[in-house]
């Protein structure tokens, strides 16, 4: 890929072009809101140590209602506490780190596996396609959560296992999308031109085809990120997520909702956190799609 770039003087570096492309999102207010939410949570995750009023695992007044003062009177439990007296706000702030680490990582891994599979299936077709598509169909025929439960039940609950499970379950979906795009793009004349000058199959897939599929793939990645956030939350809710005591949004919901009879608001806050992040990704995807369809 690099040798394409060097021979001719370029006005713009690829990085600059990427940033410029990203700036197009300004034309869609939906996308801007989405981007805003994501940037907000990213900042929260980065500065969690500064922003959180309490250490996330520090016990205090149990099941304190939102707005009550801590035992020593030095702080306020803005969003209340859980049954061990840990501050919900601090745990949400620290929990964003887990989500924003594992969700992008898992999505990236799914693409890393799914893209080559989709390229090979769509470009080579024939037996390669049949075999790869069949494997994908088998995995996709599991209801997702059933698959997660089996995998986690087998290999145990941990951050890296979540990444493995998400990769295993999502890569076939990525493969299908890439395959569909490649089936369309492989009939373009510039691909034909590359074939007639004897380029290797992988070069054609990676240099001639893949860059032209980037638009729909970026949109899909955003949607998938949102879905992975939901998945991680759901696994946490079912007790199959990250092992305690580190804060995990889904796990917090499942703990706090048991005390809804005491105060139904306690469980609402982590739900808002997770829903807003998913919304951010979904809105960004919508905005990107809108902008890409404009020209």
């Amino acid at each position, binding site marked *: 890929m690099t040798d394409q770039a060097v021979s001719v003087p370029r006005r713009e570096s690829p990085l600059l072009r990427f940033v410029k492309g990203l700036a197009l999102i300004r034309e869609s207010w939906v996308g801007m809101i989405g981007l805003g939410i994501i940037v907000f949570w990213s900042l929260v995750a980065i500065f969690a140590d500064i922003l959180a009023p309490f250490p996330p695992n520090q016990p205090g007044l149990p099941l304190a209602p939102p707005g009550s003062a801590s035992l020593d009177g030095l702080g306020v439990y803005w969003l209340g506490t859980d049954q061990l007296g840990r501050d919900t706000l601090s745990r949400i702030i620290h929990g964003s780190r887990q989500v924003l680490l594992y969700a992008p990582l898992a999505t990236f891994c799914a693409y890393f596996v799914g893209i080559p599979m989709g390229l090979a299936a769509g470009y080579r077709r024939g037996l390669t396609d049949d075999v790869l598509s*069949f494997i994908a169909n088998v995995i996709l025929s599991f209801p997702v*959560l059933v698959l997660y439960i089996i995998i986690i039940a087998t290999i145990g609950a941990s951050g890296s296992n979540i990444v493995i499970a998400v990769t295993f379950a999502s890569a076939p979906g990525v493969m299908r999308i890439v395959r569909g795009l490649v089936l369309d793009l492989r009939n373009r004349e510039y691909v034909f031109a590359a074939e007639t000058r004897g380029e290797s199959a992988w070069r054609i897939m990676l240099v001639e085809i893949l860059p032209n599929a980037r638009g729909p793939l970026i949109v899909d990645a955003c949607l998938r990120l949102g879905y992975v956030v939901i998945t991680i939350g759901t696994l946490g*809710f*079912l007790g199959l997520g990250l092992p305690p005591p580190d804060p995990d949004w889904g796990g917090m919901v499942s703990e706090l909702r048991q005390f809804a009879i005491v105060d139904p608001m306690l469980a609402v806050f982590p*739900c808002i956190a997770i829903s807003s992040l998913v919304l951010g990704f979904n809105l960004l995807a919508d905005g990107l799609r809108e902008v890409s369809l404009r020209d």
Partner: protein
Amino acid sequence: MLIFMVRRFGTMALTMLVVSILVFLLLEINVESVATKVLGPYTSQEQRELWLERNGYTDPAIWRYLRWLGNFVVGDFGDSVRFKVPVSDVLWPRLANTAILGGIALFIASIIGLTLGVIAGMREGGARDRGVSVGAVLTTSVPEFASAVFLSGLLVFTWPVLPGTSGMADGFDLVQLVLPVMVLVIYDWGYVARMTRASMAEVMMTHYIRTAVLKGLPYGQVIRKHALRNALIAPFTVIMLQINWLLSGVIVVEVAFAYKGFGSLLYEASLNSDIYLIEACAMVAVFVAVMTQTLADIGYTYLNPRIRFS
């Protein structure tokens, strides 16, 4: 058409076969852990080995697999460790409960999704379109467990109009179904609506709609006779495939509302390492999913004359 159906069912059987191998490999290839799970962690090494020997676990894996598969095909899923009864005794009633919950939710979500999708797609970019799109994005961004929390916060605790759990302890009660169905519908309708909208909007842009309008047909007739038929082919498949997603959502909802269905059964089984139950649940879930996919494909072919006659 017949050849197509035979082929499609052949592929389905093959998929199930591969799925069974996968499930077997994941859960039964390590006999040590099978013994631990069945007998519990506090058993001695000798006890486990004795158990393994007695239950044929010393045979080669391929033999064990074939025997396992044979039992599965005739409906013998083994005994549940947790419930101490044959798996099929617990599985089928639970599955029926889930079918009721899922069926109602799917029906309502499809009706809402299709209607709003068609309305939104009729005039792309209009006010209705934007309204539906925004609504769909908002509701599909809320995970099932979160909307369960929101809804019970509102309808169980703040204004207590609905029961907070759906255990059906005193027999079947339709009121207890309201919250679980609502949660599933909220998450699922948006997806159907978005697909329908996209399909409808695409059809409205086609030349044959222009032909129909320029033939002088009344607008209502253009929509009913020309647009809907074509626009609803794609969402049909989506709805059928949605069953697969619904099964995931059902697990969460059943756990959240303690509904005695198939999803909570699988969940309990996994928490208790009840491997025969997990296996049975997984196989049944995949069977349902693959079956709906097959029906979706056949239905799609039937609805689409371009495939039917070629």
